[in-house]
Each structure stands twice: as structure tokens, then as C-alpha cells.
């Protein structure tokens, strides 16, 4: 390659015979050069990339194999479950009584545990989550004093004052299959059951546990389940979860997942079949995970008929009407009823019970599978709940099924009570309610729809694709938030989603402390954005910008279907997405999931080159034009009128005083003709193509390598979008020059015009640079304009919004 020549003059160098030359016409970017240049380049030569110095930046495209766990028989290299994949099974046969008078649960369960692992087990671990609420629990013991004692929240005071040992599991018996006592040890929120004989591979063991506990007030204590008391009518709503001692997960990656339950990180569980008999006051409506087995015993004829009607309905049918629920509120029960629920292949069991419930239902078919979508809510939930809850359930089942797998369960409940948002297989608890006067704000409306979508969505992730919520919260929260965003987009135009769009993650990405997504959830500082928003946004970017919708949807569906009813790990997800899409995504996982880099790509400069036609008529004319367009210096201006010696004494002039180097001479013409003779017709075409060679210089400031998306506007008014894969950064992760060859003249270039890459600084995305109004300025300007109604009728005041 020919050395860059210093410019300011418009000479050609004598060209070496074979090569064409590109003449740089002008440089048009801020920084260093502002003058017009003539440069000579070898057409075939590579662009001058910054040479990699000895201190080379980390390679963003390095393969991830070095970090990911080694594939094995349980988890294969393709990301699919290995041919010897195993997981345990835990079946439950439970009798439980809800004591409405004392807000208490009394239960007895028979657990059948099947050991499919290659290991022999001598003990089993169970979770006793209710023990979180004991006064001596680790959560209480490790609670630090609030910084501002003067402003202690009332609830905290109440907790401190009312601390009692009333809460927590009271385990009254642990027995083997024959009924003989089994040795066990309670370790705070865990219990170890020592098996009489070691449990070998393929064997099962049955044992039973009896227990009781006081239900917490879920309004006063932050809890995933509990009761809500309504002082006006003296009734309770019970939302029950974590209400029975449950098997801790045992898996191939971490063995027993028996970290103490501190209230933050959640849990992982085993799949199994449940038979649960719930005894509640006879005037309660009970909804639960699974299908009701004995409707003749617990429902009235009218209710059974309405349910039947609901199965084929095209909109929700009331099984218990608002009038009936209202009439039921002052009721005193005469006795109890037992509701029998069966659920197959679920990892948990939740239920809700109240005499206040209104109950609506609508049957819905998902690919041949009949599902009953049902909502339970007190009158305080209306009119919002009757309008939106069941519809939101159905919408979620439709959209999520399309992106992952057909909803396999027979039922999907959404229940309104004290818990804001929590999910269990086939049943979820959702909090938003309208005002007491029945009105509600837009924010509340969307809050309800969004939370129902999100919680019902959790059936898919992690209830069925059983990722470890404690270790990798993002695998369910991130994926679910992403699908929630897609569902919201299909609910109504311009649904106010807050997660998904890359522009909303920009703040978090540049935050000073933020952990990589691939950090164990227990260690993450600001878990929320880390586990929900950032992964959801990353997946959206992967879908829209990196892979495209078709390829992404195929790969994502492959992942969901491979791991349906199994337990995936992050590597399984990363590998499957690549395996199914055929695209190397290691740079993407590295950047978005393993690092805290952000996107900030800048246009540093644009240079323009032309082919040197070698035609003196053209080249010398251009050179002359460039020379003439040079600004005249101040001194030159002032010197002009001064008398010159050569004007007074013309004999001092010689050849050089009238020599015009830019005049086209015959010799020039002859030289050109000789040159032309050496060219083929094709080569002649090339020289006369009149093409412009732009080089756009980009710098990666934020660290994340991302696809480069240009919107080019030409001088003739036309526009063009150019989408370049992220691999353009593979030779140099920090700086690159991208050539654009065009016969047209470029007027402007914008980088990431549709805000796809979560670029944190838009001010450096334009050439020529243009000021970007900040959000603050835009908002302020809007505030100062009159509202549309005022604009139309300037003398009318007080418009409503």
C-alpha cells in the first residue's frame, strides 16, 4: 500500500503502472483534518485499521466454551438434555384443613420420593418456608437496625412489638411408610429426614409428615402467601403457598439445593403428582392447582351447570355472581366441605379460599388441549377484575404457547388477594384493585393486566421449564419479562410496556455498580434490573436486531420444548440458542450476560475518496477547483493591493511566473492516452465509474460490540438503511472503518436510527454531528405548549385529561 501523502497541494504523484489511485476529495469531520486532501491509495489495499498494539483488548468474540461447563451425559454440548439426563420425582398425597376461626393450617402429607439419580441417598431434605416468620429465624436475627430510627416504618414496629413464636411450622410427626417414627433434624427453614435404609438409584421411598402453622397476615408482613382481613365485613381471603413441607431439589449440578430460605432468593422444586384434599368452611370457594375431582360434593347444581356452560363459552361466565358473593359475606358456615384436587406433573401446589370470592370462568382450547381459565376475586376487585383478569389469562396462554409450547395444564387461575404478584402452577395471586368508588387510573388498569400476564406466564418459566430461581433468577424472570413484553405488544396498540425496549435499559447499563447477569442471584446488589429488565431487553435485541424474529423464535421455541418439564442451566440456554439458530452468539452472551459493558458506538469521522481517473482534463480541473476553494488568508488579502516589483519591472518575469501547473498540456494528454491503451475495456469502465468511496470511522466506547445500523441520506433525497452484523468488530473491537461505495453523494449518516442497540449516548451517532435534544428538554418544551384542547379553543380553560 502506498503511503499517505500529505495534502494541501493537488499534485498527483507519478503512479506506478498497474494501480489505480483513489484521490481523497475532502475530509469532512471534526477532529484533526479539515482541509481538502489528495491522497493516493492502492484500490486493493485494506483500509488503514489501527494496528493492534502489544496491549490488545480482550477479544469480544472469544468462544464461550472456556467458561461454560463441560458437556456431559446429562447436559449435552448442543444444549439439549443429555441421553442420561435425570431428575427426581416427588409425589404428594395431602390432607389439609383451613381453620378460618384461628387463621391456621393443619396438614398431613404422604410423600413418595423416587430417586432417579445415579447416587445413593441416605437422607432427604425438605423446605419449611413458613419458618421464615419465626421470631428466631435467620431473617429476623440478621435484620439490621434501620438507618433512620426516627422514621421507622409502622409495620416494622408492629413486627418488633408483636413478635411471637406463633409462626413457623409446628412439625408434629415424621413417620415412615409403616407409621414408625423417622429421625429428622430441623435446621431453621430446612428439615433433614434420615432414611432407615439408603435409597439406591431407581428406588422410591414413602414417608409422612404432620404439621400445623399459623397463617401470617399478608398485608402486614411481606409474604408470598397469607391472609387478608376485611374489617368491613369481617371476612378473610386466604392465599396459600409454601404451606406444606416440600422436597428440596436434588440435581446433577449442585446436589441438594438446600440454602436457607431468607425471603429473597426463591427455590427450586421437583416435579410430581399431587392429590390434595382441602377442608374449608362450607361456604368458601376454593381454587387450587389442578382439577377439582368432586364437584358434586362441593358445588351447587347451579354452579356445576354454569361451569359446564363456561367450557364452551366465548367470554367469561360467572360461576359465583357478584350478588351471590355479596350475599355470602355475612354468612356463618354450618360445617366444612372437602375439595379434592388432583394435579399431574407440577412442581408445587397453591390454593386460595374465601367466602368473598366472585368466580368467573371461560374454557379455552390451546392446540387441542382444553383449558379452563378462571378468576377469583372479591367485590373490591371490580369492575377491573371482571373485565380483564380471565381475558388476560387467555391472552397469555395464546401468546406464550406460540413462542414456547402449548400450555399443557388443564386449568389456569388468577386470584385477587393480599399478595401483589406471585405464581404457582396453574394458580397465581395478583394484587391490583380499583379505588373503593370503583374508578381506577390507567396505571392501575395496566398494572393488573401486566401482572396477570406475568404471573400466568410464569407457568411456562419456571413452573414447566424448571430453572433454578435461587441461583439464576434471570432464567425465569428475564425470559418471562421478555415474553410478557411480547404479549403486551399484542394486547393493544402502544401498550405502556416499560421493559423490553432497548432505550429503557440505557440508565441501568451505565450505572456505576451493576453486576453481570451471570452472577449468582444471592450476590446481586440491585437484583431487579439485573434479573428482569436487562435480560428481557437483551433477548429483545437478540430477536429484533441480531437474529431477526424468525430465527430467534425458532431457537427460543427449541429451547422451551427441549427443557419442558426438565431443569435447564444457563449453559443449556446459551448452547441451544446457537445450536438452533446456526449463528455464533458467544460475543452476545459475553457482552450482555457476562460483562457489564454497555453500548456506545460513535461515528468519529467520515472520509471520502474518489478514483483518480488519470484524465488530466478531469483531475486537473478538480485540483484547480479545490485550490480555488481554499480560503484566502488574511495576509494574502492585505498583500494583494501592495505594489509588486515584477509588475514594475516585467523583465524579472520568467517561465515560472506564467507557468500553470494545473493547465492541461499536450504532454499530459499524450501520457493519458498511452495509459488508456494499457487498459482493458473493463478497466476503463472502472476508472470512469465516478464512484465515491466513503469511509465511516467508528469507535466502540461502551465496550459492547453490536451490529452497526446506518441510515444514509443522500444528497438526492433518497435514504437507505445498511445493517451490518456485529462480526464487523472481530478484527478490532475498539475501532474500525467501514467503507461505503456509492455513485451518489452522501448528505448525512445516522447510527442506530431506530434505537435498537441500547446506545447510551446518541450525541455521537450522527454525521454531520447534530445536537440531540435531551429527554429533559423535550419534556420541558412539551410542558410549555398549551394542551391540544386549549389550542383548538383558546378561551376554554380547564381541560380534563
Amino acid at each position: 500500500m502506498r503511503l499517505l501523502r500529505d495534502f494541501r497541494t493537488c499534485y498527483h504523484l507519478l503512479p506506478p503502472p498497474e494501480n489505480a489511485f483513489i484521490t481523497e476529495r475532502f475530509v469532512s469531520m471534526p477532529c484533526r483534518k479539515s482541509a481538502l486532501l489528495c491522497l493516493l491509495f492502492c484500490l486493493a489495499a485494506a483500509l488503514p485499521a489501527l494496528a493492534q498494539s502489544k496491549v490488545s483488548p480482550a477479544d469480544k468474540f472469544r468462544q464461550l466454551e472456556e467458561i461454560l461447563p463441560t458437556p456431559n451425559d446429562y447436559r449435552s454440548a448442543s444444549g439439549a438434555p443429555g441421553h442420561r439426563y435425570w431428575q427426581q420425582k416427588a409425589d404428594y398425597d395431602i390432607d389439609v384443613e383451613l381453620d378460618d376461626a384461628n387463621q391456621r393450617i393443619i396438614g398431613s402429607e404422604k410423600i413418595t420420593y423416587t430417586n432417579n439419580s445415579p447416587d445413593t441417598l441416605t437422607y432427604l431434605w425438605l423446605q419449611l418456608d413458613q419458618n421464615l416468620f419465626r421470631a428466631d429465624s435467620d431473617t429476623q436475627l440478621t435484620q439490621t437496625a434501620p438507618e433512620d430510627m426516627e422514621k421507622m416504618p409502622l409495620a416494622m414496629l408492629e413486627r418488633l412489638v408483636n413478635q411471637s413464636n406463633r409462626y413457623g411450622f409446628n412439625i408434629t410427626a415424621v413417620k415412615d411408610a409403616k407409621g414408625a417414627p423417622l429421625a429428622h433434624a430441623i435446621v431453621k427453614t430446612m428439615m433433614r429426614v434420615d432414611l432407615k435404609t439408603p435409597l439406591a438409584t431407581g428406588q422410591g421411598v414413602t414417608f409422612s409428615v404432620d404439621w400445623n402453622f399459623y397463617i401470617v397476615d399478608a398485608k402486614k408482613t411481606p409474604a408470598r402467601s397469607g391472609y387478608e382481613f376485611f374489617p368491613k365485613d369481617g371476612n378473610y381471603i386466604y392465599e396459600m403457598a409454601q404451606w406444606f413441607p416440600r422436597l428440596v431439589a436434588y440435581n446433577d449440578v449442585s446436589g441438594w439445593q438446600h440454602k436457607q430460605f431468607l425471603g429473597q432468593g426463591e427455590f427450586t422444586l421437583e416435579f410430581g403428582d399431587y392429590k390434595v384434599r382441602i377442608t374449608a368452611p362450607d361456604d368458601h370457594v376454593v381454587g387450587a392447582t389442578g382439577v377439582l375431582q368432586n364437584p358434586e360434593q362441593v358445588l351447587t347444581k347451579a354452579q356445576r351447570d354454569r361451569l359446564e356452560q363456561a367450557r364452551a363459552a366465548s367470554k367469561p361466565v360467572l360461576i359465583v355472581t357478584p350478588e351471590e358473593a355479596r350475599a355470602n359475606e355475612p354468612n356463618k358456615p354450618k360445617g366444612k366441605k372437602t375439595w379434592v384436587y388432583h394435579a399431574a406433573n407440577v412442581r408445587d401446589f397453591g390454593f386460595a379460599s374465601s367466602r368473598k370470592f366472585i368466580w368467573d370462568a371461560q374454557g379455552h382450547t390451546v392446540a387441542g388441549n382444553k383449558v379452563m381459565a378462571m378468576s377469583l376475586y372479591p367485590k373490591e376487585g371490580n369492575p377491573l377484575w371482571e373485565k380483564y383478569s380471565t381475558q388476560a389469562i387467555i391472552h397469555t396462554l395464546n401468546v406464550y404457547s406460540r413462542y414456547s409450547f402449548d400450555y399443557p395444564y388443564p386449568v389456569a387461575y388468577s386470584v385477587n388477594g393480599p399478595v401483589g404478584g406471585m405464581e404457582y402452577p396453574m394458580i397465581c395471586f395478583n394484587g391490583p384493585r380499583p379505588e373503593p368508588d370503583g374508578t381506577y387510573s390507567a396505571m392501575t388498569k395496566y398494572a393488573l393486566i401486566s401482572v396477570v400476564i406475568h404471573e400466568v406466564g410464569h407457568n411456562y418459566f419456571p413452573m414447566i421449564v424448571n430453572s433454578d430461581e435461587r441461583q439464576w433468577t434471570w432464567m425465569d424472570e428475564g425470559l418471562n419479562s421478555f415474553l410478557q413484553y411480547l404479549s403486551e405488544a399484542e394486547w393493544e396498540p402502544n401498550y405502556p410496556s416499560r421493559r423490553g425496549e432497548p432505550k429503557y435499559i440505557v440508565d441501568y447499563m451505565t450505572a456505576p455498580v451493576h453486576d453481570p447477569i451471570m452472577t449468582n442471584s444471592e450476590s446481586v446488589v440491585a437484583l431487579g434490573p439485573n434479573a428482569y429488565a436487562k435480560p428481557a431487553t437483551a433477548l429483545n435485541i437478540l430477536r429484533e436486531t441480531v437474529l431477526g424474529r424468525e430465527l430467534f423464535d425458532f431457537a427460543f421455541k427449541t429451547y422451551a420444548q427441549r427443557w419442558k418439564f426438565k431443569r435447564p442451566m444457563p449453559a443449556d440456554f446459551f448452547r441451544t440458542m446457537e445450536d438452533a439458530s446456526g449463528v455464533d452468539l458467544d460475543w452476545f452472551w459475553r457482552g450482555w450476560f457476562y460483562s457489564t459493558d454497555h453500548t456506545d458506538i460513535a461515528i468519529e469521522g467520515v472520509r471520502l475518496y474518489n478514483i483518480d481517473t488519470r484524465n488530466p482534463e478531469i483531475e486537473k480541473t478538480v485540483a484547480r477547483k479545490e485550490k480555488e476553494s481554499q480560503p484566502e488568508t488574511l495576509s494574502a488579502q492585505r498583500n494583494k493591493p501592495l505594489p509588486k516589483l515584477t509588475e514594475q519591472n516585467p523583465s524579472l518575469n520568467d517561465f515560472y511566473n506564467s507557468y500553470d501547473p494545473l493547465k492541461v498540456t499536450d504532454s499530459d494528454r499524450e501520457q493519458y492516452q498511452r495509459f488508456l491503451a494499457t487498459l482493458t475495456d473493463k478497466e476503463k469502465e472502472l476508472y470512469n465509474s465516478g464512484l465515491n468511496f466513503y469511509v465511516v470511522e467508528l469507535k466502540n466506547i461502551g465496550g459492547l460490540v453490536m451490529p452497526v445500523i446506518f441510515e444514509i441520506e443522500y444528497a438526492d433525497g433518497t435514504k437507505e438503511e445498511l445493517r451490518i452484523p456485529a462480526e464487523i468488530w472481530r478484527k478490532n473491537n475498539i475501532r474500525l472503518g467501514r467503507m461505503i461505495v456509492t455513485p451518489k453523494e452522501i448528505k448525512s449518516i445516522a447510527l442506530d436510527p431506530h434505537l435498537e442497540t441500547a446506545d447510551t449516548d446518541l450525541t455521537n451517532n450522527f454525521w454531520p454531528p447534530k445536537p440531540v435534544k435531551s429527554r429533559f428538554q423535550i419534556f420541558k418544551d412539551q410542558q410549555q405548549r398549551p394542551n391540544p384542547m386549549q389550542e383548538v379553543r383558546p378561551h376554554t380553560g380547564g381541560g380534563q385529561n
Partner: protein
Amino acid sequence: MLRWFLLCAGGLFIFPGHSLATPAPTGNLQSAICDLKFHKFHVTNSQIEYNQTEQSAEIIVRVFADDFQSAISRHSGREVKLDRSADWKDKAKAALILSYLNENFVLKNKAGRQVKLSWVGMEGVADMFWIYVEGKMTGGMAGAQLKNRLHCELFDDQVNVVNTKFEGKQVGLMFEPKDGFKSITEKS
């Protein structure tokens, strides 16, 4: 202790320490919002950008709507609703929010004087509020300090993130309840 005790005794609304546990009367926005699973996270995101021409600090505070409503209600001693667009144009509510911000988002210039914030506006998107305020700050951000205690009276795990842009630089700060004033820039 005495202060809030009097507030309690007065029977006014004090909202409990976790936004999921709502006070008995109304659910609506107080019930944990939107796409939340149980482990709600307590974060606010603020951005301060220095406007060279106006010589002012332009601040956008982004908060979870339900937490913020709790905070303002607590601050005012009575239940305050902010979730309707009409609320965002309400002058009384704006004054209330401004007083809360002046108390809990304290920006000091290099002379050590607090930058008085003035109201520009607010808007709600999904489950968040965006609050726009500004303050005169002649002489740039040099030597400025910030104390950010938004929502710390509600949650002891509150994390407040602040991004400051000035002179082409970006400085990120993270505040926890235990933090006091932090320097945004070194004195120039």
C-alpha cells in the same frame, strides 16, 4: 422515635415498609405493581445533566409509582394518590413532591449551598413516574455533592442510582441508606 410516634397517634396513614403489604383501605397502585414477582426490588434511577447555556442542573428522577406514592403519602401525613394524569398537573401535589425531593435529593454546589429545585413536571409510564426538576447552578458541576435518600425511609434495602452528565463526562453514583453526601466531581 417521638416524631413518628406522634404521627401514628394522630391516626394518619403511615405506609408499611414493604410495598407489597398494602394498607387495608385501597389496593390499586399500592398492591405490588405490574410485572412483579414477589421479590420486589427497591431502586430509583436519577439523571442529572448540566445545561451550560442555562447554567442549571436538569434532573430526571425515575421511581416506581407505588413506592413513590407511599413515600409522598408518608411525607405529607395523609394518603396521596399520584397515578392519574390529572395528578401530574396538580399544583398542590407538585409542591408536595418538590418538598420531598428538596429534603431527600440534596444537591449542593461547590460553595456548599443546596441547589433549590424547581418544578418542571412529571409523567407516568407503566409502573414508573418520571419527575422533572431543575435548579440554578452557576459555575458548573465542579465541586458538587449529592445526598440521595429517596425511599430510604421505607426500605432498608433501597438502592438509588444517579448518573451525572457534564462537560462531556459521565459520573455514576450509587447510594445506599447508609450513605451521606457523595462528591460528584473533584474540585476543579
